[in-house]
């Protein structure tokens, strides 16, 4: 028998079964996240299943992030319903303004090395940055967890992605993630887990890894996991909710595919409308006018992202006329850090619109909606037609630096032309 992948090890441990890729196991999740986008339906399923008592309410987390703040009476009522249910059953709830559920799971030390955290939201793969098996589920499976604390999972085959070298100046983790999307395609990792490896990992700090793990679902991946190392432990110092045990793949683990990405050879990239894997070098799209620039989301809404964007904007002399710059921190902790270090004031000084921490404009459910025919460049993860609430807008995805360069020039620009 060959050795085991990270997925095989974690899901064996969480099911109590010595299992391999292809096996179906019933696992106990360490934590499960429900958002305001998914939980109301889950509560309907829970009631229909005959649910009365929540199994392990302390392992659940509710986050009001998709409608933050509530843009309508109907969504405000959904929030009331979640607050009432959470209060009655003792489920921790992050209310409007606390931030995106995924960011809160990470900040609160619930996503831990060797752990299993599921979320009723596709971007739950983000937790893989911490060597945690994180995966997205629907509302009915969330209801099953409310009922039983358990979920069935088919142990995925794994794709090993070797990252080599170090990102050059002006090139960021988002560019590496877009390169991965270009290489694998939008369904290149469907039903599979991605394991990042290689000497390039050591150069990426925890916030960098979150970007890469977050994007793996755009290739269909079930999980996108990093090894745990000193950077992981440093991040978790003072945050970890429980003791944890990192999981390393065996040297002879079996992978269905291996690819390598030379980080030192990458250039700034952009995903063109309306597909995440329609990726080109930024210079190929240079000159495309943009009217809205969005900095935020569970991909690109952390402190480091805003610092990178701020640096480019300052070097370029601010936001170009005719561009709406929208800044939406991923969490209150991020907003607070930006306020304390002066970054927030700099964005305000440049005329940015500051949004409530949360999902914001990403999926068109709240926040700024682009106008007809508008070109948007965004640090988000999806550029589907209509994604931000207007099907006639076109969405480009890029790094915070590339987005900032576009904001400064009013057109898509290689950020290396500006420098910092």
């Amino acid at each position: 028998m060959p050795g085991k992948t990270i997925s095989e090890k974690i899901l064996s441990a969480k099911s109590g079964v010595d299992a391999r890729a292809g096996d179906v196991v019933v696992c106990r999740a360490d934590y499960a996240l429900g958002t305001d986008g998914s939980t109301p339906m889950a509560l309907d399923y829970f009631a229909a299943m005959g649910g009365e008592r929540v199994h392990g309410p302390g392992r659940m987390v509710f986050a009001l992030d998709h409608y933050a703040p509530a843009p309508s009476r109907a969504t405000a009522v959904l929030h009331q319903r979640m607050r009432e249910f959470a209060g009655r059953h003792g489920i921790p709830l992050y209310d409007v303004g606390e931030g995106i559920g995924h960011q809160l799971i990470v900040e609160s030390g619930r996503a831990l090395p060797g752990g299993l955290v599921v979320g009723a939201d596709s971007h739950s793969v983000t937790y893989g940055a911490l060597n945690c098996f994180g995966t997205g589920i629907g509302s009915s499976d969330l209801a099953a967890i409310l009922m039983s604390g358990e979920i069935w999972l088919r142990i995925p085959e794994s794709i090993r992605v070797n990252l080599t070298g170090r990102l050059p100046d002006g090139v960021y983790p988002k560019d590496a993630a877009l390169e991965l999307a270009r290489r694998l395609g939008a369904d290149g990792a469907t039903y599979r887990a991605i394991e990042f490896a290689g000497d390039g990992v050591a150069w990426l700090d925890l916030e960098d890894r979150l970007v890469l793990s977050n994007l793996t679902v755009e290739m269909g991946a079930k999980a996108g996991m990093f090894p745990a190392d000193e950077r992981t432990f440093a991040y978790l110092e003072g945050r970890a909710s429980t003791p944890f045990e990192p999981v390393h793949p065996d040297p002879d683990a079996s992978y269905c595919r291996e690819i390598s990405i030379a980080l030192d050879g990458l250039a700034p990239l952009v995903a063109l409308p309306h597909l995440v894997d329609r990726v080109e070098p930024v210079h190929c799209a240079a000159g495309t006018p943009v009217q809205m620039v969005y900095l935020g989301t569970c991909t690109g809404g952390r402190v480091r992202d805003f610092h990178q964007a701020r640096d480019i904007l300052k070097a370029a002399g601010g936001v170009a006329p005719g561009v709406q710059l929208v800044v939406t921190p991923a969490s209150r902790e991020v907003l607070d850090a930006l306020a304390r270090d002066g970054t927030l004031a700099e964005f305000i000084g440049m005329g940015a619109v500051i949004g409530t921490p949360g999902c914001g404009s990403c999926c068109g459910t709240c926040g700024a909606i682009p106008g007809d025919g508008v070109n948007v460049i965004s640090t988000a993860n999806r550029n589907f037609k209509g994604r931000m609430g207007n099907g006639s807008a076109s969405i480009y995805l890029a790094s915070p630096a590339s987005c900032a360069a576009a904001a400064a020039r009013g057109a898509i620009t290689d950020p290396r032309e500006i420098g910092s």
Partner: protein
Amino acid sequence: MTAPAFEARARVFGDDVNTDYIITSRRKRESLDPQVLRQYLFEELDASFAGSVEPGDVIVAGRNFGCGSAMEVAVTAVLGAGIRAVLARGFSRTYYRNAVNNGLLPLIGDTGRIAEGDHLMVEPGLVRNVSTGESIVTEPLPAIMLDIVGEGGLVAYFRKYGRFQVTGR
């Protein structure tokens, strides 16, 4: 799975149909009722679809159907329109799971030669294209999914068992 064969009309879509194209995220803000949401089915791809869909239609798609958001309204809105199956070259894992949990049959097979409006006979494991005479073999569901479908979905499964029962393949 013991579901009988049923007749269906093919409604054909392409590759990478994400869940926001099936039903946009903003529509679920105001209602989660499938009978409301069905009015907006596929509105970003084909504004006339919601008006022309009929019970007995099935969705026929290419690769990666249901990619993107894991939102389950992308399944319940389809069911709300009287659609009982989606036949595709491939599904995102969350759509596949959500479909099974709600009793929407997800069938994986070679859909390349099915045309809009083709008359199909659909059963688990086999789709016959009556219009062309071709047959398409579809992939089997894992055993636990067969059990969930056999019970009529995850709600009925949990009402019966209260928790997941199976390990194995």
